[in-house]
């Protein structure tokens, strides 16, 4: 590829800018195997929408392996409710395919119209419906991965943790067999809440209701930005008729929750974090975030919060990470560690990751310089 055009692959949605040795767009799994076998270092790229620099090539040494063209959907099994998809399939395309069969892949996220299945597995995305459906890995039967020698392996559920959520440092996920769920008719409610303590009580109650599939939180700043009153709000989605908003009103509410991202970036909050905490620590963390004036939203149902930092506020991030760790939380709930959060990874976790990396990628070929 021309050097000038390679610049396009040297960034993602984070602010990191790297440099690539080359860029390749394999169109088949065989081509992936051949590229992997020949290259010394490889960076994997799905939609390139990561916020932690996970697909940014480093020091002009990495070959970028763009998986976008490997995008076949096939082997649909209606009895077992499974479908096989290649890594570059876009989630929305899969959902459109499945909707005709009255099924869906239940993991849903904010940018479902661009994100690829390979990227979702590599990051083990939680998404907005994780309170009911869990993470992406819960919905995978097996994955096909290419190792550093270019060999193809099928990994079942027991070995999945070596690849799901490993941010592409252990191998190339080229194909997966996904479990499916019946297509639901959903309703929702927008609940105004007076205090953070009350948020915790309501969330705890909602989590006992099996029909609840999403509990998202908006703080006062974000609510005001979305033209609601300056209060805390919970967006609650139900998979029965319990929600007050149905049909068009439900669609409108979901559209409004999609606008959160537009609002925060428009206001200059371009660094969005994604820590995960237990619900009983929510009040303490939110108190701290409000104290330093950081707008926050998130999937409170599973404890993932997205505080949004402007350039001037980024000085607060290390302190926030310390607090998250002190309260027993995780520094990243769904965006991954990438390059951005390497410095916040605990030594113990790093040792585990290094062991997995050595075991699965003995040639140290994939996404070097990321996560560990």
């Amino acid at each position, binding site marked *: 590829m021309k050097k*000038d055009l390679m610049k396009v692959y040297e960034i993602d949605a984070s602010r990191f800018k790297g440099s690539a040795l080359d860029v390749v*767009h394999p169109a088949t799994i065989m081509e992936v195997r051949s590229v992997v076998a020949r290259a010394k270092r490889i960076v994997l790229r799905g939609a390139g929408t990561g916020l932690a620099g996970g697909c940014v090539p480093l020091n002009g040494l990495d070959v970028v392996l*763009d998986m976008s063209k490997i995008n076949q959907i096939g082997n649909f099994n209606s009895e077992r409710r499974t479908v096989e998809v290649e890594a570059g399939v876009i989630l929305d395309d899969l959902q459109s395919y499945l909707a005709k069969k009255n099924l869906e892949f239940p993991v849903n996220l904010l940018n479902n119209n661009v994100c690829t299945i390979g990227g979702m597995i590599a990051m083990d995305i939680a998404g907005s419906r994780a309170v009911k459906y869990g993470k992406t890995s819960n919905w995978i039967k097996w994955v096909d991965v290419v190792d550093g020698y270019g060999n193809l392996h099928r990994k079942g559920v027991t070995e999945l943790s070596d690849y799901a959520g490993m941010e592409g440092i252990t191998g190339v996920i080229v194909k997966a067999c996904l479990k499916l769920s019946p297509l639901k008719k959903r309703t929702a409610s927008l609940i105004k809440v007076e205090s953070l303590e009350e948020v915790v009580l309501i969330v705890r109650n909602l989590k006992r209701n099996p029909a609840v599939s999403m509990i998202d939180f908006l703080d006062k700043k974000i609510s005001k930005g979305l033209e609601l009153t300056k209060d805390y709000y919970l967006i609650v989605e139900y998979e029965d008729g319990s929600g007050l908003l149905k049909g068009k009103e439900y669609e409108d509410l979901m559209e409004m929750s999609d606008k959160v*991202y537009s609002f925060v970036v428009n206001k200059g909050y371009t660094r969005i974090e994604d820590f995960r905490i237990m619900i009983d620590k929510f009040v303490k963390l939110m108190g701290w975030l409000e104290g330093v004036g950081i707008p926050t939203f998130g999937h409170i149902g599973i404890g993932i919060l997205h505080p949004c930092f402007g350039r001037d506020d980024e000085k607060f991030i290390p302190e926030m990470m310390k607090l998250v760790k002190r309260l027993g939380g995780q520094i990243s709930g769904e965006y991954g560690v990438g390059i951005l959060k390497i410095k916040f990874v605990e030594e113990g976790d790093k040792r585990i990751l290094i062991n997995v990396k050595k075991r699965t990628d003995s040639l140290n070929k994939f996404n070097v310089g990321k996560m560990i």
Partner: protein
Amino acid sequence: MGEKDKPTEQDKIEADNLMEEVAEILELCIKCGRCKSLCPVFRVLREETVSPRGKVIILSDKILDKVIFECTLCKGCEQKCPLNVKVCDAILKAREAMVLRGKGLKSNEEMVGNVRKWGNVFGERNVKGDCFGDEFKGGG
């Protein structure tokens, strides 16, 4: 442009000015990649270079490559952009700058020549049908 294939000093200045305007339009972009979802060119070709974000990155670095002609100007990207970046406006200006610098596409030049000479893009003397009206019919 004055003489064919040879940009004058004035053309170069105009092209530079256009590229300044392009950079100004695109400086808001945060490279989130949401623009890709509605881009018909990306959806078919599946290469980041032809995606709106790809073009933004190239143009922000003031690189003029023929890849910017791989856009239908449908504004789907603008509809999805959280910051309302006017990507299509920037691409139009960049195309203009490319032509001024003598880097326009040969096929486009041929089309313009055909329209001027024959009144149609195909370069045929007798184009059947009169959907463009009599005044646009082939002549010569």
